[in-house]
Every structure is written in C-alpha cells, then in structure tokens.
C-alpha cells in the first residue's frame, strides 16, 4: 500500500527569540529583525509524514506552503529531509487573509492535486498561535480531522490510528482516510537534513527565483525536472477571489497596541544572607508566607 501524503507547512518569523529591536517605535513588527524559520510544529508534522513514507513503500510526501516568494525555502528544507516535491502558493491576492481565507486558499490548492490520502500539518504556527487553519482546511475539504496528534500509530484497511496528546490526557483514535491530522510539538523532532538530498536539491528553485538569479545552472532545470518547485498563483487553482484576502476574511483587526506593563518601584537586593533574611522576615511578618 502506498500513500499520497500532503504536508502543509508555513514559514514564520521566529517570535520565540524576540529581541529589543523587534518592535518599531510605531508599534508595528519589525519583520527584518526576526529570522524566518520553518514553523516548529510543521517540522513535527513533516517527520510523521516521512515516517509513513518510510513504512509504506511507494508513498510520496508533497509540501504545500503559502507565502511570499522566499517561502520556497520551506520547500527546499523539506526536500533536504526527504519530501518528494512541493508547491508554493504565492499571489498578492492572498495578502491580508485571516485563518479562514488562508484555509480556503490551501483547500483549493489541495483540490488541485491529483489525489490525497493523508494531510498533515502542525497544530499551530508560532506567529499566530491560533490552531485554526488545520481544522478549517479539513472542513473546507469535507474531510474528518484528528488534532493534537503525537504519533501516527498505523494505517490499515483505509483506516488510520493516531495517538493524541491532550492537556489532561492521551487518546488513541481511529479515523477513515482521507483525513487531516494536526501534529503537536510533543511529537518526535524532525530528522536532520540528509547530505545527499542537500546535494540533489540545492538548486531547486521556483520560476520566479530562476528569473531573479541568472546563474550558471540554468541548463539543469530542463535536464532535472525535480529541481522545479511549482509556483501557483490564484489563476492556477480554482478559487473565488471573494473568499480570498481581506475580502474573504470575516475577522478584521480593529486596533493593535504595543504591550506596555506598569513598572513598579522595586527594591534591589544583591542576594547577601542578611538581605534574604530581612526579606523573608518581612514576608512572614505581613503574612504573605507562613
């Protein structure tokens, strides 16, 4: 049995390591100060997909990502780790999309693929932390979903068994294929890049990237079709533009504020024995402790 697996992955700004210069004076995000990375839980999802590929011979792993041109990096990174091919969904028409419009666009792209047995994606992306796109893509495609997956245990007779990690427990559930699965950060880490695959796919590029870089390897793209990363605009997938971008987004951002906390007048201590004793004495005396 072979499986057609799709991984939805996103390139995100690394919000976990936000430095002091990450916010501009006007309260907007200084994207240039944040490195763009592979959304961490999408890497956990990729690993689950690759494990299925290892297990069921003839299976393929296809990456679908939506974003600006530089998001092609996500597809290359996936190819280095064992994915077979990738599609970059990029168009100005997608700009301003909320989770629902994003899910609509992704679902249209998936419908444009020949056939799909399993769709896996990270539970959530670290720039929004909403965990909405997975279930919304599933709904748009009319597929069932299994969220918070920690491990895909088995696929047999058209059914998939998955272990879920919930806030207060564990569940093992079984669902029918085709299905969408969102993967938790508690799932195994993604395997590293494979040196041979890095060599193989180092020059994989989208059409736009090829036009931008007039390098000496142009001749290869005809000889080695696997180096072509497919780029799709709205015109390449069947979409209704009313469902995309700001127009297709029921939620609107009314206001954005920088977070400012009320500073307190703090007492500074150097950690000397006498200081700690004094502090503890005070806390006991005012019944904060004890």
């Amino acid at each position: 049995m072979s499986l057609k697996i799709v991984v939805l992955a996103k390139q995100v700004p690394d919000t976990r390591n936000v430095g002091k210069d990450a916010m501009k004076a006007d309260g907007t995000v200084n994207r240039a100060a944040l490195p763009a990375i592979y959304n961490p839980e999408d890497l956990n999802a990729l690993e689950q997909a690759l494990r299925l590929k290892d297990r069921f011979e003839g299976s393929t792993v296809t990456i679908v990502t939506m974003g600006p041109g530089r998001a092609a990096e996500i597809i290359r990174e996936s190819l280095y780790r064992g994915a077979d091919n990738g599609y970059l969904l990029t168009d100005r028409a997608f700009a301003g999309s909320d989770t629902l419009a994003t899910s609509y666009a992704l679902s249209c792209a998936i419908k444009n693929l020949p056939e799909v047995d399993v769709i896996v994606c990270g539970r959530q992306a670290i720039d929004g932390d909403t965990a909405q796109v997975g279930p919304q893509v599933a709904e748009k495609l009319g597929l069932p979903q299994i969220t918070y997956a920690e491990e895909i245990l088995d696929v047999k007779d058209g059914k998939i068994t998955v272990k879920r990690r919930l806030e207060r427990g564990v569940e093992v559930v079984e669902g029918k294929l085709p299905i969408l699965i969102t993967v938790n950060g508690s799932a195994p880490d993604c395997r590293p890049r494979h040196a041979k695959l890095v060599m193989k796919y180092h020059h994989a590029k989208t059409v736009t990237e090829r036009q931008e870089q007039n390098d000496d390897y142009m001749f290869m793209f005809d000889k080695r079709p696997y180096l072509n990363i497919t780029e799709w605009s709205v015109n390449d997938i069947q979409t209704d533009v009313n469902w995309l971008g700001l127009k297709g987004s029921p939620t609107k951002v009314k206001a954005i504020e920088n977070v400012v906390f009320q500073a307190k007048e703090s007492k500074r201590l150097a950690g000397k024995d006498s200081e700690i004793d004094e502090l503890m004495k005070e806390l006991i005396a005012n019944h904060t402790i004890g």
Partner: protein
Amino acid sequence: MNNIIVYLEIEEGVVADVSLELLTKARSLASKLKCKLEALAIGSQLDGIGAQVFQYGVDKLYLADDARLYPYTSLPHTSVLVNLFKEEKPQIALMGATSIGRDLGPRVSSALFSGLTADCTALEIGDHEDKKEGKSYTDLLYQIRPAFGGNIVATIINPECRPQMATVREGVMKKEIFDANYKGEVVNLEVAKYVSDSDFVVSVIERHMEKSKSNLKSSPIIVAGGYGMGSKENFKLLEELASVLGGEVGASRAAVDAGFAEHDMQIGQTGVTVRPKLYIACGISGQIQHIAGMQESSIIIAINNDENAPINAISDYVITANVEDVVPKMIKYYKQNSK
C-alpha cells in the same frame, strides 16, 4: 435569536471550569446587550448539567444527549453547533481554548463562514466605524488577544458575520456565581435532527484522562522557573522551596519548551494565568507573554543574574544573584523562623 451562547465542556458529568468562567463573562455581556444567555451541553447523561450552570445566569440550556456524543469527537459536535446556530442565529458564541474548543471552534466557524478569534484575553462590547466603506456598527464584540508571541495586543472584530466566535483559555476570566436561585429553561434537542450517522467517522479507542496535577490557578504562592534554571534537575530546588512555603511550581514557556518542566506548569499567555499572593520568578527573563500571565500577582520577587531583565521592572523585589545561592537561603531562613 440574537443571544449569546456558550459551549459547555463536560468531563464525566462535570462542567469544566473554563466553561463556568465563560458563562460568568457571557452573563455580563448579555446584560449589557440586553439579550439572553444560553448554554449548550453535548454528551451523554446530561441530567446534572442544569444544576451546575443555571446559577451562572443561564436563561436557556440546550441539551444534546446521546451515548454516541461522549467522549468528544469533532464532527458530531460540529454538526450540533452548526445546525443549532443556523436555527438560533446567536450573535456571540464562546468556547474554551482547550484541546476540545480549539478543535471544534475552527471547524464550526469554517462551516458557517463566521470569524473566530482564538485565545482571547479580554472580551468587550464596543462600536466600530468603517470609514472606507462608510458603514458604522454598534455593539460588536471586541475580541482582544495577544499576537506575535505576545509582543502586541490586537483587537479583532467581525463586523458582518454571525455568530462572532471566540475562544478563551482556562483561568483568564474569573468564575463567579450570578444568582444561586437563578432558573432557566431546558431544551432537549432531538439529536438525530442535528447529527447524521456519517459524522461518526472517527472513533475513540482508548482514553486516559487525568485530573490536572498542577493547582497553579488556585495556589496563593507560586515559585516559577525559567530558561535560566538551566536544567530539569535544577527545578528540584524550586520544588523544595514551593513545598516548604506551601506553594506550587510553575514555569515559563521557554522552560517548558526546553523540557525543564511539564506543559501544565506553563504560566503566561499560552499557559495559565495566575494571580497569587506571592510570585517568585527564578531565572525568568520576563518575556511579555510570560508577564501577561502573572502581572496581577500581589508581590513579585525576581531572582535573576541579569540586572536588566524585563521582569525586574514589574517586580517588587529584585535579587540580582544566582538562583542556586538565593533559594537555599530562603529555605533555610523559613525553616528556622516559621512556626
């Protein structure tokens, strides 16, 4: 029609705290909007639910009672919400930002094409003017949430689509009984009208649920550790201090991500919100997303090597020293001097 509806999360016949917290918030929103507060329970053997929720000011309680609806699975619960919302057209729908609410909410919002805002930290009613379209809206739900790793706070609105949907994490809102004698109406839904057999495509084979080990939310004293603790072993020192003082141990997201502490110990925007009498932050630099979850603590002590750590600004006492040096001193003094 046009009411507020809260999805009740139920485990073994008990309504989850997060749902009661939402009912409390929704009650005040309903009074402001002069509409009714409704609650929806989906599961099996729901007779006891009314007694648990009416006192929070619920005017109408919908029950979808069917053995197949417990434990929770995505599609059947989605169908109940989607079909009931089509009939009742609520203006606002709220649910917990739990592994259930975050599985269910997006699916429902997609089916109804209504906006959903995840993990709100505040919900308010307000107006909006769209100057570009020349339209004005009154009494919208302001869904306020942190974004971008907590570095900004965004106010989200859904001007056109209903219901306006939002999820809220446990512990963010306060739970408060509205009127112990409040009585609402019970409406039993005919499940077969809302759920089709084809919705049961995912089945739960095994299930191990634990009561939360951590009592962070209700503990008056919290000793929290951050990435600066350096290892899981070093957290033992914090456990010792917490146990001596009669408190609980919490952690920052960075410490949880690094594997030093368990997930249910996480304090902050993406974890639990706490308001203890005393908060001792050890090796925590104080990223905004952490501070947002503990800034309402009465007394904050920061123990950190970095004299410029952001957490120092909001702390009452700043001890610039090694945690490993300071904490044993605290334990020693307390053991010697407390009764």
